[in-house]
Structure formats: structure tokens, C-alpha cells
């Protein structure tokens, strides 16, 4: 411990230096608190429903049971709002069920991560096993790093200085119900376990705030010459999305029509059980000057146009405007990236290569990206999870996925489908001319509508890139 001397005994106390002195005192106090915090460890405040959920899992025969912990971390406090068990692998043998499948856990985490709106993320992993505590911790550590590294590798944004990099591991012994809670700094591969507090609380999320917006996307990207497969399209889209994500990240954010100073606090949690909602606006500019090499040969183009609904939740412990902006922007970027990724995954899986299905030199395909549906969590408060519904899926498929991935029992009437409209122009469900080739939809889950067209089609007025089709 350092002791700071603010004045020496032989100097007379200079009152004009008092304000600066007080600032120094404050800074020291904060520094000491931080050090104290570091030594004492983080404190996780957990929604009390989670206790019941974990308890039920303890009563199951299976051992080990792994799962994810969902919540929000801030510099001062950490919140856990939900626990989700790892789903059973269908084809796993009885023996395999007794061991932890790291790949399966991480893949589950990746899928879950896509279903969390801004502000909610995978903050840790848990394991319910009566195995040795040290072994359990080792397993947890491996899972934690694998999960967090996979999830952050898919982010299209750079980590911020004020991001919390500590994540939590929870080991519960099903027989004794003893809970061991530790944190690791996932930025540091050599990180050692630090003790952490785990406290249950009711009504945790009741006064959390919601920041949301509806946002237009309008991207047009060239496809390289002679390389227009889905794989190439994926590369181009990834690059384009990165550039667009950068634009969003550097954009101006207004909250409820005002440009707030970064450190100002949003008024949250002052009245319990009152819904606090904020509407955000994003203003962007182009940063990159492109004045040379302006025309290049290409093999085609790919565009993403339309609008998305984005949302982020903020904890009720004096959140700052800077946090709201960061979480919302990240949700904007990830919801668009997720949908594009899902579409590409479907295309690659169903192997619909254009060279097989259409021999025309010109070809235009439209794919409706899935739209976002929100499902409220049973806990009181504004929190929702989300899922993406392809245009040919019914709500039953959504509720099935919510059950399988997030272990949530939701009824179709609970789902909020009003935030985004299905694309309603003729393009998506047009019946092609009989003389044209029609792409056959595979019988299993059809997840896109691809229509090969050589004739001009009336399309969305805002997509300028499509207008010139009428010329031909």
C-alpha cells in the first residue's frame, strides 16, 4: 500500500491548492477502491430465477451438466439475468453424455450469442458436477476461453478500452449444492482464477432501460470477375460489412433527439417497475476518400437493402450515455451481420450454385433475409431475447428454437413480431414466367426464396442499384 503525501509538514497549507488537493484525494480513493475491488474480486448480482433453474438442473440424473450464463458486465458491478443449459446432442451415446463436449458447448454459445439483443451477452459458463472442484475449474476455464474467444472472433467491431474482460465460471455440486464462483480475465491467456461473489436478488431487471432504433441498410458491393460463387459472395460481404460496421461505430448517436455528453448518466432505475425506453438516432458519414481507380471490372454485384430493428438493454446502476451508444451500435452491427451470415450458411448448405441452375449470362437472385422477432423473458422487466425467422418459416419453428437453444418455454402469442415487417414487394414471391427456369425449393426447411430472373422486375424504390435493370 502506498501512502500519498499531499503536503509536507514544513510547508504552510496553501488554500488555493485545496481544490487540486481534493481532486487528488478523490483520485486516490478511487484508485484504492479499484485495487480493493481487484483483490476482493467481482460481485455478480444474479436474478433469483436463476437459482431455481440451476436447482432443477441439479436434480437431473445427468452429470456433468454445462451451460451458459447470460448478463451484462460493467466496471462497477456484474449482472446475470439468465442461465441456459447446453442442449443435449441428439446422437450422443450414453457414455459421451458424461463428458463435456467442448465443441458442442462453444457452438451452442455461438448460436445463443446471436439470439441476444444488445447489452446481453454470454458472461460466463457453469457446470453442475460432483467431480473434483479443481478438475471442474479446469474444465470451466477451458470452456470459458473457448466460448469467449469464438464469440469475440465473430465481432465486427474492435474491443473498446472500457470493455470488461472478466468472465465468470460457476461450479455447483449437485449433492451439496455448494457453489464456487471464480472469474478469469479472458484477455490474458495466463489468467488465474479470482474469487467472485455470487448473490441472488429478485426483480433485478425490472428497472433496466431499453435503447432502440430502426435503421436503414444500403450496401452495394462488387463481386470479383469470374468468381461469383456463394463463397466469393461471402468474402465480399464480410469486407463490406466490416467497412459499414466502421461507419456505424464512428457515427454520431443521439438519444431521445439529443446529443448527450459521453459521461452523462441516463436516468434509469429511479422508479422501479417503470419502463424506461429511449429512442436512438444514428448519423453517419463516409470516411474513406476514393479518388482513383474508380472503375473496375467486376463479375456482378451484391447488395443488402432494407431496415432492421435494433435494441440494447442497460443495467439500472447509473448507466452512462457512452455505454448506451456502444451497446446499441454493437447490436446494430451484429444483427445485420448475423442475418447475412445465416443466409450465407443456408446458401452454402443447400449448395445452390448459380452456374448449375441458370444458364443465362445475366442472373439476378433475391434473398429475403430473416427478420427479427423478440420474445420477452419471464422475469419482470423489459428484457427480451430474439430470434430470426425466415420468410418461409412459421412461428412454431421460432418457439422450437427458443426452447432448444435458450431453454425458454414461449407461446406463439408471446412473440413480438411487430418490430420488423416482412418484405412486401412482388420480388420475393413472384411467379417467374413459364419460359424461365425456376429454382426448385428443397423440401426440407426452405430458408430462402431464390428466383432467377432475366426480365426486369419492379423492386424496392430505394435500391438505386436495381433501377437500371429497366434499361435493358
Amino acid at each position, binding site marked *: 500500500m502506498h501512502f500519498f503525501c499531499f503536503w509536507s509538514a514544513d510547508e504552510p497549507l496553501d488554500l488555493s491548492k485545496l481544490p487540486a488537493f481534493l481532486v487528488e484525494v478523490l483520485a486516490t480513493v478511487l484508485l484504492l477502491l479499484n485495487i480493493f475491488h481487484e483483490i476482493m474480486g467481482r460481485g455478480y448480482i444474479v436474478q433469483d430465477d436463476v437459482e431455481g433453474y440451476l436447482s432443477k438442473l441439479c436434480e437431473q440424473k445427468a452429470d456433468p451438466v454445462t451451460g451458459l450464463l447470460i448478463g451484462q458486465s460493467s466496471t462497477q458491478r456484474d449482472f446475470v439475468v439468465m442461465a441456459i443449459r447446453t442442449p443435449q446432442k441428439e446422437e450422443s451415446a450414453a457414455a459421451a453424455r458424461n463428458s463435456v463436449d467442448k465443441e458442442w458447448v462453444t457452438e451452442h454459445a455461438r448460436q445463443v450469442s446471436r439470439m441476444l439483443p444488445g447489452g446481453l451477452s454470454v458472461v460466463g459458463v457453469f457446470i453442475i458436477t460432483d467431480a473434483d472442484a479443481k478438475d471442474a475449474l479446469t474444465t470451466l476455464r477451458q470452456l470459458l476461453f473457448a466460448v469467449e474467444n469464438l464469440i469475440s472472433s465473430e465481432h465486427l467491431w474492435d474491443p473498446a478500452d472500457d470493455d470488461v474482460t472478466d468472465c465468470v465460471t460457476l461450479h455447483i455440486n449437485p449433492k451439496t449444492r455448494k457453489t464456487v464462483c471464480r472469474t478469469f480475465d479472458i484477455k490474458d491467456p495466463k489468467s488465474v482464477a479470482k474469487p467472485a461473489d455470487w448473490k441472488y436478488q429478485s426483480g433485478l431487471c425490472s428497472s433496466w432501460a431499453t435503447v432502440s432504433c*430502426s435503421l436503414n441498410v444500403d450496401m452495394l458491393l462488387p463481386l470479383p470477375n469470374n468468381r461469383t460463387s456463394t463463397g466469393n459472395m461471402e468474402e465480399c460481404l464480410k469486407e463490406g460489412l466490416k467497412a459499414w460496421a466502421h461507419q456505424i461505430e464512428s457515427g454520431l448517436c443521439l438519444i431521445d433527439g439529443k*446529443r448527450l455528453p459521453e459521461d452523462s448518466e441516463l436516468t434509469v432505475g429511479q422508479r422501479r417497475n417503470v419502463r424506461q425506453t429511449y429512442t436512438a438516432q444514428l448519423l*453517419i458519414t463516409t470516411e474513406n476518400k476514393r479518388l482513383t481507380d474508380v472503375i473496375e471490372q*467486376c463479375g456482378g454485384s451484391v447488395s443488402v437493402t432494407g431496415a432492421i430493428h435494433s435494441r440494447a438493454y442497460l443495467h439500472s446502476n447509473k448507466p452512462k450515455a457512452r455505454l448506451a451508444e456502444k451497446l446499441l451500435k454493437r447490436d446494430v452491427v451484429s444483427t445485420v451481420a448475423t442475418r447475412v451470415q445465416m443466409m450465407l450458411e443456408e446458401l452454402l448448405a443447400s449448395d445452390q450454385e*448459380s452456374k448449375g441452375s441458370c444458364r443465362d449470362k*445475366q442472373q439476378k*437472385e433475391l434473398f429475403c433475409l430473416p427478420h427479427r422477432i423478440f420474445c420477452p423473458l419471464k422475469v419482470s422487466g423489459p428484457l427480451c431475447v430474439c430470434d430470426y425467422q425466415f420468410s418461409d418459416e412459421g412461428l412454431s419453428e421460432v418457439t422450437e428454437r427458443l426452447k432448444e437453444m435458450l431453454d425458454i418455454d414461449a407461446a406463439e402469442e408471446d412473440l413480438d413480431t411487430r418490430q420488423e415487417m416482412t*418484405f412486401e414487394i412482388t420480388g420475393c414471391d413472384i411467379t417467374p414466367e413459364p419460359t424461365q427456369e425456376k429454382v426448385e425449393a428443397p423440401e426440407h426447411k426452405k430458408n430462402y426464396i431464390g428466383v432467377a430472373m432475366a426480365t426486369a422486375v419492379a423492386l424496392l424504390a430505394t*435500391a438505386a*442499384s436495381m433501377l437500371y435493370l429497366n434499361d435493358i
Partner: protein
Amino acid sequence: MVVVDSETTTVLRVKGLLEFRCQLDSTDEQLVRNVISRTFETLRSQVKSESCVLAVSNSPLIIWPNKDAYATPEEITPSTLCEDMHQWIQTDEQESSGKKSSKKKSKKSSVASVINLRLMTEVTKPGPLSAPILTKTVLKSHFVSVTLPLDCVVCTGRSDTIKDACEQLIEALTHQLCEMEKVTLQNMKGMTLLVPEPVHFLLPEPKGLVTVVYPVGVPDSQLVAQRKELHQQFELPDDRPYFRRANAYHFPNEPYKDGYLRNPHLALTHPTLDNGKVYLVQGIYSYHHYMQDRVDDNGWGCAYRSLQTICSWFQQQGYVERPVPTHKEIQQALVDVGDKQASFVGSRQWIGSIEVQAVLSHLLGLTSKILFVSQGAELASKGRELANHFLTEGTPVMIGGGVLAHTILGVAWSETTGQIRYLILDPHYTGAEDLQVITDKGWCGWKGPDFWDQTAYYNLCLPQRPKVI
């Protein structure tokens, strides 16, 4: 095209980059032009749409010009006067000591002040809206991807409100896009496209600030026809340049990247003589003096520095593209014309007016007149000649004699009384580019006839303007 006159109190300058992207699925010239035009039309609609936003730099002000000039913060209304926007702008002079002193700023000056705005796009809209579609087009074609550097200037008067300004700004932006379209189509050759770029020029009163769109990368020498047209359009004399790129107007709040001071003499109060008039250098020059550019020429480089000041004038008026020569380059030029031996390069030998004339001729292709006075006392009688020089040529004058060289930037001369004062820029200054010090201590200042050594002889080099546009 915008006019600045004495009525203008605030100049609004909006800058922004707009992405211009389209696919050319045919190489047929007419079809290509159609696509280009249509893409420009889309950009024009974008500028006129509700998602077009103007953000005032260094301030929390944001205006939606197409939503009846709705603005945030809420104290700003469409009927707020443009000049009141200054209260919200934080300048570099103010220390960010935590206190928001930005509101207290009010500058009263006779020169119109400039407010910079950024052109932005709002991507959020009230929902719900249609979910996105991904469109994949496979077609061997060409892809055009450019960022258009928009830069518009609008002049507002005392009684103009933000709403008025918005209308003018949007009109200026759409007009500039039209100009850009014209220039782009004019300069399209097959599958190459030149990016259009706006440049501002300050024309003599009453014409004021004017914006011209030039294609990037095309040198001035290839734009003679355009300049001729512009000279005709604005009724400008055809023997001096107004529209070369180097003539571009330098906005007062933009710092010069090279660090040299420009026109320090503007900070001075000029002398008033009975029946006298002030005749000054025209245009912009940089102040070159001892110890700059990490060259220690203290005691020998004064004429070189004066020559550099003169070269900077010709460069900034657009007559030459060559940057200001270094001491070595000057010495090499003299060796090249046979005036000096090779050993001259790298030496600390002085040069005089004749050498200055030779270098201006050899390196920059300029002619100069030499004026000779056998005694410093005679300089007082050269009032008429100097006044005429500044009237017709307006170039800085290098004067060498005795053991010193100086630059004359102007004279105050009375035809009736013969009284004369000389505006001197002294290259012997060894300090930093501090305008306050330079003007206070007289390194740039008005001197009387006794400034000269009354018995020494002097040579003056009077550079002549080439008669070109």
C-alpha cells in the same frame, strides 16, 4: 455560384463525402451515361431527403435541413439567426477547462466569419420498416465506386435565419451535384472516369466567393479553355490568373500545413500621410526568414530569404507550380546559368538583386526589372515608381544594398508632399512564426526613409507578372 458582399456576416461551408456507386452492365456509351446520370439523381434525392443532416463542427448543433430546419439542441429553432450559431461553437482558442464557455463567444469583426458544417446521413428512421433483402447479380460488368468530395459555400446576412440558410445550402448541394455530373460526363473516356472536385475562389468585389468544379488529376495547363470561359463569364481581365488551383481561396479558419505565416502585414495599421495613399503587394505570400527549414543562414542568407518570399508569392498566385526553392537550389541555379562557379553550391556567399533576377528567370521563368539608386537618400524619390509597381504588378520587391537585403511589400506615398513610408518584411528575423512578436518588434513594419543607409547604393529587383490566366 454565391456572392459575398458587405451584407454578409456569416459564411456557411458544408463539406462531406458522398458515396457514388453503381454497376455498369454495358459499355455502350449512352447507356453508361444514363446510369451515371441516374446515380447522380439518386444522390440529389438523398440530399433533399429527410435523412440528410448537417452537423455544425465543434458544436452540439445538428440540423435537419429538409425537415423544416428542425434542430437539436432544442434552443435552436428554424428562426434562430445564423450569426447566433457562433455562440454554440467552441474554437481552439478556448481552453477546455471543463467549463462550457462556448456560449459566451461573440466576435465582432468586419470580416465575415466562417462556420463549418459536416454533411451526414441519418440511417435511423421511425419503424417498423421492411426487413432487408440481399440481391445477388451475376453479370460481367464494371463497377463504379467513387467518393464525391462535396464542398459548398453559402453566404448569409444579418437577418438570415437557419431556415433560410438550409434552403440555400440544400440548393447549393444539389447544384454542385449537377455541376459534378456535368464535369464527370464531360471527362469520361471509355471506361475511365475522373472524379469531380470543387474549388472555391474569391473574386474581386462584388463578385465574391465562387465555386468551380474541376476534374481531379488534370493539371492547370490542360484546363485553359475552362478558365477562359470562366474569365468571360465573370468579366475578369484575361491577363492574370484567378482560377488556377493555387488561387483557391484559403478559408480563415484553416491552418496552413507548412507552418509559414501568410501576409503578416495585414495585422498592421497602415500610416496615413497628407494626401497620401497606400500601395500594397497584392495576393498572398509566405514570410521566409533566417533559421527556417533547419537552415542556419544567420548573417548571410537574407537575400535568399527575400527571394524565397517572392517565389512563394508566384506559387500561391498560381503562376508556378514549383515549390519554393531551397538555398542549395538557388545556388545551383546560379551555377547552371554560368553566373557562379560550382564551388558556390553549399557555400555561405551572399547574393544580390542581380542574382535574384537571374534565379527568378532560370527557375521560374519570370522577368524582373532592376532599379538602381546610387545613394540610399535617393530612394525617397522613387515613390511614384514603387507605387506604380504595386498598382500594376503587385509583387514583393527585393532590395539589396549596403550589407543588407530586405523585402518591400508596399509604400505609403503622397504625390503632393512627397512623404514616403516603406512596408518592410525583414528576413533577418531568427525567431519563431509568432505574428505578435513579428509585428510588435517591427520585423514586418512600416519604416521611414531613414531606414536606408543614406550613402550606400541600392539595387531593387521588381518581379513582373506574366500575362496569363
